[in-house]
Structure formats: structure tokens, C-alpha cells
């Protein structure tokens, strides 16, 4: 390695630059981050409390009913839902479940609210497509743990940095599938819309988005599952919920509790996935 021609170039301080950049953001935008954290915490705490107000038995019935309709009035998914939720309750994981649910819902909603418009922008503008595609690639390939570091720097520890990192991690599928869904709308549909004198927004809302719906929903489905997986990882920076139990078990090398909480996450993932898929099929 010594005397290699590559040694001529001194080590570039990329890490330092990045750290400086994050420091600069933290220093100069701390008012914004603080406001976001306080607001976000308030919203999510309230939401979790509301979810916890609902008696578990009512909650289980409601979710089972939703699963029943989502699966096209078949019994497989509702049976799984009811048994799975009873298991979670039985294992004393109801409160962590509600925290996890809150985090997943908030992260997913934010991803959709940001992701769908960005996807539309990419579908309509080649320039936007050209710029945003590599950013999405970056977001998806960067190891998820790395997002935890700036999240802590901006928001400290807790739910808000968890949601922040989950949104970054879960956003790309919604953006990509929205873009794809709109681009897949056939030329004849677009021509038909235009030939009757549709404005751009009429074309988008009356024709393109309805036709792209199934594809966009597939993206949202992925986003929800990715948000769930990131919410678990975010427990390492203090996000409460089922992930917290998993991390605790990991740190103490407790196989039993680790499996119990891990299995609860699997149950939640399957219920979310199948229910969303079921609604998408309709």
C-alpha cells in the first residue's frame, strides 16, 4: 500500500464536512427542530392515549371487522387478526403495540402526504425525475441506522426522531410507485382526457390518479411495512413500542422476551400488509 500513487491525494475530510453540516443545521435551525419535536411529541402522545382509551376488546373487534371486509368477507385474515391481537394482549404488549401503531401511522401518513405529490411531480417533469431518482436511490441504499444519527442530532431521543428516520426510510416506494403509476396510464387515456379539453388538474384528478390508484396503493403498502421496520430500529434512539422490548431483550440476551415481542411485530406486519392489500384489490 505504501508509496502508492493514490497516496498523493490526502484523505478528504468527508466525515468532518458532514458533521459540520449537521452541526450547522442543528445550531441554526434548532428553533425549528425544537418546535417540530414538541409539536410531534404532543400529537403522538395524544394519539397513543386515545388509542389506549379504547378498550382492547373493542379495538380487537374493530380491527377484525376491518380485516373481514378487506379480505372480501373471507375468514382467514379476520381469524388471524383476532388470534394475533389476543396473543399480543395476553403477553402484556398492548401498550407498546399502541405506541408502535401510532409511530407507523404517523410515519406512513407523512410519507404519503410528501410522497404522492413528489411522485406526481416526477411523472410530469423529466427534470424532476432526473434529479429526484438518484436521491431516492441514496435514501434506499444508505443503511437505515445511519439516519438515526442526524435524527438524534436534530430532535434528541424519543418518538419524533423515530418518525423522522422512518419517513426517510419509508418514503421512496410511495414516490416511485406514484411516478410509475402515472407514467403507466396509457397514451389513449391521456389523449382522450386532453381531447375533451381537460385542464392539467382535471386530467390528473379525473383520469390519471384514479387509473394509477392500484399502483400507488402498492407503493403505500410497501411504505407502511418499511415504516414499521424502521420504527423498530428507531427504538435504539428511544422510540417507544414493541421495538423497545426487542432492543431491551437484545441488550440483556433474553431469548424468550425477545421472541415474544418480535413475534408480536410479525403479527402486526401481517395484519397491516394483508388488510391494505385486501383494500387495494377492491
Amino acid at each position: 500500500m505504501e508509496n502508492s500513487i493514490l497516496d498523493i491525494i490526502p484523505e478528504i475530510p468527508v466525515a468532518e464536512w458532514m458533521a459540520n453540516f449537521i452541526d450547522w443545521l442543528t445550531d441554526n435551525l434548532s428553533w425549528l427542530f425544537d418546535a417540530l419535536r414538541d409539536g410531534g411529541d404532543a400529537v403522538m402522545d395524544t394519539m397513543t392515549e386515545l388509542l389506549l382509551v379504547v378498550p382492547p376488546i373493542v379495538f380487537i373487534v374493530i380491527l377484525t371487522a376491518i380485516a373481514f371486509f378487506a379480505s372480501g368477507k373471507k375468514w382467514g385474515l379476520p381469524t388471524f387478526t383476532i388470534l394475533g391481537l389476543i396473543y399480543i394482549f395476553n403477553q402484556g404488549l398492548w401498550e407498546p403495540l399502541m405506541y408502535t401503531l401510532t409511530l407507523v401511522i404517523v410515519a406512513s401518513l407523512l410519507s404519503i402526504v410528501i410522497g404522492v405529490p413528489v411522485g406526481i411531480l416526477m411523472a410530469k417533469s423529466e427534470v424532476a425525475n432526473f434529479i429526484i431518482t438518484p436521491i431516492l436511490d441514496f435514501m434506499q441504499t444508505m443503511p437505515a441506522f445511519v439516519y438515526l444519527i442526524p435524527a438524534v442530532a436534530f430532535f434528541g431521543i424519543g418518538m419524533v426522531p423515530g418518525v423522522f428516520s422512518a419517513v426517510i426510510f419509508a418514503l421512496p416506494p410511495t414516490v416511485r410507485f406514484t411516478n410509475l403509476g402515472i407514467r403507466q396510464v396509457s397514451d389513449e387515456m391521456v389523449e382522450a382526457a386532453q381531447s375533451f379539453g381537460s385542464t392539467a388538474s382535471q386530467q390528473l384528478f379525473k383520469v390519471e390518479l384514479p387509473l394509477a390508484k392500484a399502483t400507488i396503493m402498492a407503493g403505500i403498502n410497501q411504505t407502511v411495512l418499511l415504516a414499521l421496520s424502521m420504527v423498530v430500529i428507531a427504538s435504539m434512539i428511544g422510540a417507544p413500542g414493541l421495538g423497545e422490548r426487542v432492543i431491551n431483550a437484545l441488550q440483556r440476551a433474553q431469548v424468550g422476551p425477545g421472541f415474544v415481542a418480535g413475534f408480536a411485530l410479525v403479527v402486526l406486519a401481517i395484519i397491516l400488509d394483508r388488510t391494505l392489500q385486501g383494500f387495494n384489490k377492491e
Partner: protein
Amino acid sequence: MATKVEVQNLVKIFGKKEKQALDLVNKGLSKEEILKKTGATVGVNKANFKVEEGEIFVIMGLSGSGKSTLVRMLNRLIEPTKGSILIDGENISDMNNEDLRRVRREKISMVFQNFGLFPHRTILENTEYGLEVQGVDKETRQKKAEAALDNAGLLPYKDQKPNQLSGGMQQRVGLARALANDPEILLMDEAFSALDPLIRRDMQDELMQMQDSMQKTIIFITHDLNESLRLGDRIAIMKDGEVVQVGTGEEILTNPANEYVERFVEDVDRSKVLTAENIMIRPQTLRANKQGPRVAAQQMKTEGLSSMLVIDNKQQLQGYVTDEDVLAAVKSNIRNFDSILRTDIPKVSKDTLIYDLYDIIHNTDTPVAVVDENNKLEGIVIRSLVIGALAKEREEESENGE
């Protein structure tokens, strides 16, 4: 008739070196030469034509001839590279978006090859789309859309989705949708090409019937010469982006502008295959021994005929009488046909080729009688049948033959 649509020097170039290619187009180079020199494709090469109000103007060409590009420039689904499109004297090609939208909403509707129906909307919602984007209130637009569907006999299906209907019905919806906002111009892009031949023939008939009452200006794109001849008041033939001939069906058949048109026409020239028997119809006849001028006058009046054939009791052709002669005879109280019977009617056998009928039918005002070797009348051939025969589909012919 007034000119409704006028296309002047319309050019469309696809590809990067647009300017360079345009220069070459102006120098009169062909599509192939320009592709070789610049890599740009000439979609439409200096098209010029006028469409009169109320006519069916057919643009015919094989795939790649630029006909679909041309029709899409008329409502600017495709932006023209150069040239102008005048609709009622208004230049579409340099209109701003708002004016263009107004023209699309009020003046021009389009019917698509694969129907272009929105799968997520019901038949009724599809039909009211054009009115919906104009901001017409729900009640009014539903009423209009229902009327358009009723007209096409589709009202019972209004709450179904497009994929629940057959192709023919879907295209009727496509047509009803296009007509719902009462446009002046209808662009039909290979509208019947995706339908099977029998349905296609029905749709052509329906279109012509509708056209009789509504008198829209219709620009119809097709690759099918038979369809052009059936529908078109005038036909433009396109090749390699150029309009090579514009004329009536008869003009194009009898006087092809160049070798290409000739070959095109030759492919479907079935006049050398079909005979008088294939196209003759049962005539309205008068019996010389039983009927006189009064009966003749009455029948001509009710049937709207200008002449009738006269036969004897053995079905043998005697000749024909004209309406003027019959009326004169009635006035002067003549009771039989002897004095007014004309015998200069052309006779052919049922094996005569349609090709050979051309000259005969061209040189006479009367129908051509089809007789057997005993001069027994078997049928008549009139001019429109000869033209119609050329537009017939093979499939339908076998069906009619059964």
C-alpha cells in the same frame, strides 16, 4: 358549402434535428432521404387539404403513413412543427392553451381506435366527461349524456363499466361521448378498426345514418380502402407523410394519381371477380298485359322511382317507361304502355363482370337489366350497387350469399 377545416403546409418532424429536417422538407426531399441525412422522422410532410362543412372526409393510408399524426395535429394532441390548421378560419396551430381548450371543448371531439373509455368510470360518467370538464352542472350534463346514450340505444347500460360491454358497444359509447357535447367536428381515428368485420359494417351504416340527420363535419382515419369508399364523401390518400391524392371514391378508383394509389386500389379491385349476379337487386316491374300508366304513376310515386321496367306474362323484358312519359300518358288518358315503352335499355347476363359493367353503366341513365338467354328478367343493377360492391367485405359477402 363552406370550408370547415383547412390544413396548410402542415409538417410534423419527430426527432432532434428538427430545423435541419424542416429545411430539407422545404427543399422537397423524401421522408427516407431526410431520415438518412438527419436521423429525424418526418411524420407529416407538407399536407394541404380542405374539409367542407358537413362532409365525411376520409384520410386513408397504411400504418406509418402519418395519418394518425395528422389527425392528432388537428386538435393539437400532437404539436405541429410547421404549418397552419384553420378551423372556421381560426388558426389552431398558434393558439394559446386556453383558446385551445375552448376549441377542444366546444368544436372538436375525438373517437379513438381502442375506444379511449375510462375504465374507472361508468358508461354514463364516461359520456358526460366532456361536459364535466366544461363545468356543466351535474343535472344538465347527465340529461345530455343520457340523451346521447339513448340515441345510441345504450341507455340501459349507463351504470355499467366499459369492460362489461362488447367492443362494438364500447365504440358506440365512444361515439356517444364524442357527440354529447355537440361538437361541430368529429375526429375518428381508426374508430372501427378494432372491431370485427360484421360489427364494423354495422357501425359504418349507423354512422352514415346518424350523419344524415346530424350533418357534422367528420374526419375519419382508416387504413381500409373499403371503409373509405363506403364512408367517404372525399378521400385523401397518404403515403410517407404526404397526401398523394384527394378526391371522391370514384375519382380515386378510376383515376389514381400515381402508381402507389393504383397499387393500393388494385389490391381491393374486386370488379374483376364479382359479376352482375352478385350485386343485382330485385326490380320493381310492371306487367304489360295487366297494368297501365295509372298504376305505374302510383307505384313510381310511392317508391320514389324515375323509371320502371315492363315485363310480359312470361317474365320477359319488354322495355321500360319513365316517369315523365307515364304522367303524360295518364293525362292523355292512354291505357297501355305501347306508345311510351322505351327499349334502349342495356342488357347483360348474370355472368357479366362488374369491371365490364363500368362502361355500360357509365353511358346510360337507366338501370342495367340482367336477363337470361330467353330474355327473362332476373334483376337489375344500378350505379350505386357497382360502387357499393367495391366496398364490400369478403366476410359479409359470404354471409349474404347464404
